[in-house]
């Protein structure tokens, strides 16, 4: 799968063509380690100097994608990437088997589970501001999230989606995307399990 989509170029404020694809290779994983991590670390150090903004330090970047190579061949897993201007701009891993719905009204039904989603650090406003830089592209995470909802539709799961949100991301998934916060999961670092019903998913896609 390889499709042209549009994301927003922050410099011009205009939409720009990008590609979303699911043929992720080890080279992409290595790219995230080599290109992304130093920028995240630099931003984290800048944020750590300011107590008021220290809470903005991302809490997830210990994930080493290069250790996920073996998972590339697993049928239940799908990895998505977005590239623009010959650089990887975001990456996502979804699983269609490991989890099922927890909301009482759809308990046990299959869903697409977002195991990991990350935009390149230069596309994250909160990381670029402390470095005195403007983010490069906007809506990368949005497009990846949209792909997960669309995959759920294609799989016959009707848009049902689940994820464990990190504390700093809960507002995005609940307030902005309209997911239902189901509860904290003691088996997953007490992270908040959020879920889409088909109705919520379609409201998201339609922009309501």
């Amino acid at each position, binding site marked *: 799968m390889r499709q042209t989509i549009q994301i927003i170029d922050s410099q011009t404020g205009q939409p720009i063509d990008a590609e979303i694809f699911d043929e992720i290779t080890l080279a992409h994983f290595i790219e995230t380690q080599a290109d992304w991590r130093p920028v995240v670390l630099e931003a984290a150090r800048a944020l750590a100097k300011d107590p008021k903004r220290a809470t903005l330090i991302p809490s997830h970047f210990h994930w080493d994608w290069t250790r996920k190579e073996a998972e590339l061949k697993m049928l239940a897993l799908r990895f998505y990437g977005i590239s623009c201007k010959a650089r990887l701009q975001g990456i996502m891993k979804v699983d269609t088997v490991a989890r099922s719905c927890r909301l009482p009204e759809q308990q046990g039904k299959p869903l697409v589970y977002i195991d990991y989603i990350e935009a390149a650090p230069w596309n994250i406003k909160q990381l670029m501001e402390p470095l005195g830089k403007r983010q490069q592209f906007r809506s*990368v995470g949005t497009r990846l999230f949209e792909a997960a909802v*669309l995959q759920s539709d294609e799989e016959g799961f009707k848009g049902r989606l689940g994820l464990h949100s990190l504390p700093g*991301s809960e507002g*995005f998934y609940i307030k902005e995307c309209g997911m239902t916060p189901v509860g904290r999961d003691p088996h997953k670092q007490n992270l908040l399990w959020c879920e889409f019903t088909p109705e919520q998913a379609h409201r998201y896609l339609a922009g309501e």
Partner: protein
Amino acid sequence: MKFNTDRKWLERRAAQEDRHFISVGGLISTLDPTCQMQASASIPIVETTKTAFVRLLQLTRRDRRLSLEKLAEKADVDLAELVKIENDESFMPGPRTVHQLASVLDLPAKKLMVLAGLLQAKDPSLQQASVRFAARSEPIGNISPEEHAALEEYVKFLNER
């Protein structure tokens, strides 16, 4: 896949995304917010010590001739979590689990917390010792005399500091 082509939709969603982090995945630390900040600022250390943490548990367990099941039982920890700890370095064990394992394996609990990425390393020599230990040990196979020596030296270092 039929992505939304409406520009207004895209701009509205972009504005929403700009106000938040969108990250989904595992936490660096579940201890407290300040620890989270400290750990974030020392990522390379966390990644290096995590390898040493896993190797240390594996070698110590094998040195004591304990199966995973036996260790889980003795430490009163979930077997599935123990399997994850030994096989997935990105997995972040809970503080209780690390404490229980330290107790049963007779390892310094606080140091083990640091190695697991749950606490910040204050001693830079810990990273150097961890790199040396990780390089001198292999996670599979029978424990060799060299590995035994590396293990003893590393545990001695942890207990002394």
